[in-house]
């Protein structure tokens, strides 16, 4: 023993384990979740022979249904952007009484069971509802037409656009906007040259989620767009089904065929998702920053 007293016990090993254990458990839990997220997709894709997926892709019913669903979901997305971006901007930039209430209303469709959303929309746009009757008299029937499908898709997916754009607009430093104004830029110029480019990645992310949500919608469509009659009405045109409804219907008759359609839809969604990520990477490479407070 030295004159200064006994040396303290070496705690390196214990300290090492103590520091490793929390990291290991966090990594373990995260890993389990990632596996749980991927496992069903992997199981679905591996349970269907590739030829069956190709056959499904070649089926006229699937082609029409998928095309129709993509069209309707893009229309819903366009509506979400046209109405959602201004709302997201106002919620991000303006202070006014009731702002929090509107923010909550915007998020409401996310917590609403989609079947209930469909029933609620039926009460507004259905053949017996005043607005539905009024639109029908204008030649725009909503129930069981593409407009009903767009209405359902828009209703359940707009929240993503509004919420993402609100967050993205809010992340743009207001001081930066102010400085741009002092440099001679009008409000419009500032929006187009500063706010929008800096928010673009966030907005695109919200649009991607919104579109994917529309594509996968079924609950509300069971009520308002189960069987879709062509619009404008034409003679001898077949009725359409949104792809999710078609898969649901097919599953009751032929589960293997439905699985092949589901695998096809999954591949389609994954491709779109990959495309979005590539776009995001391209924007990042061009210098659009994640954080605007540089």
């Amino acid at each position, binding site marked *: 023993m030295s004159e200064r007293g006994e040396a303290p016990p070496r705690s390196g090993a214990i300290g090492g384990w103590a520091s490793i254990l929390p990291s290991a458990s966090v990594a373990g839990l995260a890993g389990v979740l990632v596996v749980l997220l991927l496992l069903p997709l992997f199981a679905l894709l591996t349970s269907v022979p590739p030829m069956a997926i190709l056959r499904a892709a070649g089926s006229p019913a699937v082609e029409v249904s998928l095309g129709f669903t993509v069209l309707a979901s893009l229309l819903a997305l366009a509506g979400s952007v046209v109405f959602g971006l201004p709302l997201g901007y106002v919620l991000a930039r303006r202070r006014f009484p009731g702002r929090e209430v509107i923010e909550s209303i915007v998020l409401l469709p996310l917590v609403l069971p989609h079947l209930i959303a469909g029933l609620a929309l039926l009460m507004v746009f259905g053949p017996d509802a005043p607005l539905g009757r009024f639109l029908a008299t204008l030649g725009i029937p909503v129930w069981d037409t593409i407009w009903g499908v767009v209405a359902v898709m828009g209703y359940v997916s707009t929240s993503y656009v509004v919420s993402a754009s609100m967050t993205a607009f809010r992340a743009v430093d207001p001081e*930066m906007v*102010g400085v741009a*104004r002092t*440099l*001679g830029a009008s409000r419009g110029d500032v929006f187009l040259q500063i706010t929008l480019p800096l928010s673009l990645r966030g907005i695109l992310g919200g649009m991607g989620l919104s579109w994917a949500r529309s594509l996968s919608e079924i609950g509300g469509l069971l009520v308002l767009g189960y069987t879709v009659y062509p619009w404008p009405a034409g003679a001898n045109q077949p009725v359409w089904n949104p792809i999710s409804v078609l898969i649901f219907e097919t599953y009751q008759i032929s589960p293997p065929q439905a699985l092949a359609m589901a695998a096809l839809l999954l591949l389609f969604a994954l491709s779109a998702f990959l495309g979005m990520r590539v776009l995001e990477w391209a924007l990042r490479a061009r*210098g659009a920053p994640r954080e605007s407070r540089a």
Partner: protein
Amino acid sequence: MNSPWVALEGLRAGYPGFELGPVDLSMGRREVVVVVGPSGSGKTTLLRCLAGLARNSGGRLLWEGRDVTSTSPEHRNVGYVPQGLSLFPHRTVEQNVGFAKETLGAPTPDREVRALLERFELTSLARRRPHELSGGQRQRVAMARALAAHPRLLLWDEPLSGLDVLARDDLVQMMLEVTSQQDVALLLVTHDPSVAFSVADRFLLLHGGSVRFLGDPERLMSSPCDAFSARFAGYENVLSTQDLAAASGAPWARPWLDRAGPEGIACSAERLSFVQEEGRGRLPAVVRWVHRDPLGWRVGLECGPWRLEQHLRPPLAPPEVRQRGWVEVDERHLLPLRGLEEGRGN
């Protein structure tokens, strides 16, 4: 009589819980006014109000007699460099500097923009984005960007914070060159006395939203009005009225109390002596700390409830920590802080 280049007449602004003003200030072209004051005194609010980014609740802004109080920021002709600089992160250095020209529809890259890049030594960095620049480079971009709009008044909020001494001095030099060559008045907020005294034609001291002092640097140095301005002017030992009241019963405090003004008293650390002999007017003291500084030593002294600081230069040797002795100061070096009315002036 010519109207002033920039004039603030009874300007008031604020937000819930805080009111700035009235601020009266006239600036000539190429004049540099340094705004100082403790945190929360309204410096940034004043700048934002002048830039048109915060609404004023009263008063007027006049550009050579033209009322611009209600003019929108884009037509106000004011350059604003905020504390965080707010460079546009998605644009290159050249695009940042050329932003004002772009809004006017000038071709890119503009000849004048290129000249500004050259003047601020940014030409080789023209293609970089703000996150690829050092603090000093970013400051230069912000300044060049603001000047590209040919502002009548340039507002600069804490421009040199976080810069090393060399970068700071370079930027100060550029700033002085630009303001001497262009018709621009500069209103600068800084907490750095060495920068402030090297550029200021006049000082505007704000405290709690009110103007406490408006005058030239010599006046601020020779007769600071309150504790903040005394510290800013380089007086290390500032005793407020509360500090003085804490020692009001002590006979040794008499000379200080007799000389004090309504806002307290100040004394430079250079003027204090720490001696071992008791004598008339000397304060009993204990050495609490001794720190080295580039020029010698800083000595912390405790005199009853007061904390004083002494600076020692070689060949004088510092005392020992906990050493007891007496503080001596020539009464002529005790500066009374006379408050608002005494220190205020145009």
